C-alpha cells in the first residue's frame, strides 16, 4: 500500500521499486543520485511544491508501482512540460547563498583542469592542491556552509530529513578534503584525483538541490521577520570573517580560470 511507504526513506523505496526513480525524475525530482536518500517519500513530495494536479498524478503512478493489483487512476491531466527556466526570486539572505554557490561552481568546473596532468612531486603541483583545499575550506566551508549550519538550518526543524541529508553531505565533502590532504602527504596522485572528482560530483548535486529545491522551499516557509533576522545574522557572520581571505579566494578562482584559458589556447 502506498500509505505504508509514505514514511519510508526514498532510497529504500527506490531500492525496492526501482521504477519509482524514473517517475520522480519525470517530475524533476532527482532523488536517485542523492548520496543520502533518507528523506521520506511524503516529505519529498511536499518539499517539491508540485501543483495539486501533478502531485495527485505522481502519487497515483507511484501507488501503481508499489501495488499493481490496486491501480489508482491518475487524473486525466497531461503532465505539463517544465516551464522555461526563469530567474528565481530568492529572498535577500538566500540570494546571498545562491550567489556564493556561483564561485564554488566555478571551482568545480575547474577541477578537471586541476587534476589533469597533476604533478604531486613538483612544488607547483603541490601548491595548486593546497590552494584548492584552502579555497574549499575557507570559502565553501567556513564562509558558506557554516552560514547554513550555524544560522539558516536553525530556522527550521533540524530533525527534518532533508536538513540531516544536507549536513551529512557537508560532512562527506569535508572527509574528501581531508583525504586529499592525506594523499598529498603520501604523494599519492591517484587518490588526490579520486577525492577531488568525488568532491566535485557531490557538491555539484548538493548545490543543485539547494538552489532548485531546498532554498525555494525555505523561502516559502520563512516569515518576513525571519527573512530580516536571517539577513542580519548572515551580515554579522560575514563581518567576523577576514575579508582579505574571501578576496584571496575570489582571486584564486580568477587566476585559475585565466591559466585554464591560456592552456586551452596553447593547444
Amino acid at each position, binding site marked *: 500500500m502506498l500509505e505504508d511507504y509514505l514514511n519510508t526513506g526514498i532510497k529504500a523505496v527506490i531500492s525496492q521499486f526501482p521504477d519509482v526513480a524514473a517517475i520522480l525524475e519525470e517530475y524533476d525530482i532527482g532523488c536517485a543520485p542523492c548520496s543520502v536518500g533518507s528523506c521520506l517519500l511524503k516529505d519529498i513530495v511536499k518539499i517539491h511544491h508540485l501543483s495539486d494536479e501533478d502531485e495527485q498524478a505522481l502519487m497515483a503512478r507511484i501507488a501503481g508501482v508499489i501495488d499493481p493489483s490496486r491501480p489508482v487512476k491518475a487524473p486525466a491531466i497531461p503532465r505539463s512540460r517544465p516551464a522555461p527556466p526563469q530567474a528565481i526570486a*530568492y529572498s535577500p539572505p538566500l540570494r546571498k547563498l545562491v550567489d556564493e554557490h556561483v564561485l564554488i561552481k566555478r571551482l568545480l568546473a575547474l577541477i578537471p583542469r586541476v587534476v589533469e596532468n597533476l604533478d604531486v612531486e613538483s612544488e607547483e603541483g603541490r601548491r595548486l592542491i593546497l590552494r584548492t583545499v584552502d579555497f574549499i575550506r575557507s570559502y565553501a566551508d567556513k564562509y558558506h556552509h557554516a552560514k547554513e549550519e550555524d544560522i539558516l538550518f536553525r530556522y527550521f526543524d533540524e530533525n527534518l530529513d532533508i536538513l540531516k541529508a544536507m549536513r551529512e553531505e557537508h560532512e562527506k565533502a569535508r572527509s574528501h578534503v581531508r583525504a586529499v590532504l592525506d594523499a598529498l602527504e603520501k604523494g599519492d596522485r591517484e587518490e588526490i584525483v579520486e577525492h577531488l572528482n568525488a568532491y566535485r560530483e557531490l557538491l555539484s548535486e548538493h548545490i543543485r538541490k539547494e538552489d532548485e529545491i531546498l532554498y525555494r522551499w525555505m523561502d516559502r516557509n520563512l516569515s518576513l521577520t525571519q527573512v530580516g533576522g536571517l539577513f542580519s545574522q548572515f551580515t554579522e557572520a560575514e563581518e567576523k570573517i577576514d575579508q582579505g581571505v574571501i578576496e584571496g579566494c575570489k582571486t584564486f578562482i580568477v587566476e585559475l580560470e585565466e591559466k585554464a584559458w591560456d592552456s586551452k589556447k596553447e593547444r
Partner: protein
Amino acid sequence: MFDFRDKKTEPDAPVAEVKSQLRQWPIQLHLISPAAPYYQGADVLLVADCVAYALGSFHMDYLKGKSIAIACPKLDEGQEVYVEKIKSWLDDAKINTLTVLIMQVPCCMGLLNLAKQAAQASERKVPIKSVVVSLQGEILSENWV
C-alpha cells in the same frame, strides 16, 4: 479617471468588527521620528497614501505586527527629508525589513525610488520588498528589491 461603481461587491453580510492594527501615532513621514521606539529593529511599512483605501485587507495582511509611515511621492514637498528619514531607519533604528507598498500608477514608483536611494546611501543593508496594488485592491506584484 476610473469609475468602479459597477464593481460587484460582497453582500452586506454581518461581519465581526475589524480591529485596527495601527500601533503608533503619528504616521505621516514628515511627522514621524525615525528614532521613535516602535521603529527600533522593526519590520517597517512605507506606504503610499492611497494604498490603505484600495487594499481591503491592509490591516490584517500587511499592517499587523509592523510599524508604518505613509507618504505621497507625487504631492508631498521636501522629499529629500524622506530619504534622510528612511536612511536613518536603516542605519540608526536598525530596522529588520522595509516593505514599500505602492499603487500601480506610475507616480507611485517615486516612493520606491526614494527607498532605493536611501538604501544605497545607508551603511547598513536590510531586505526591501516592494508590493504593487491595483486600483481595485489586488496585489499585482510582490518582489524583493
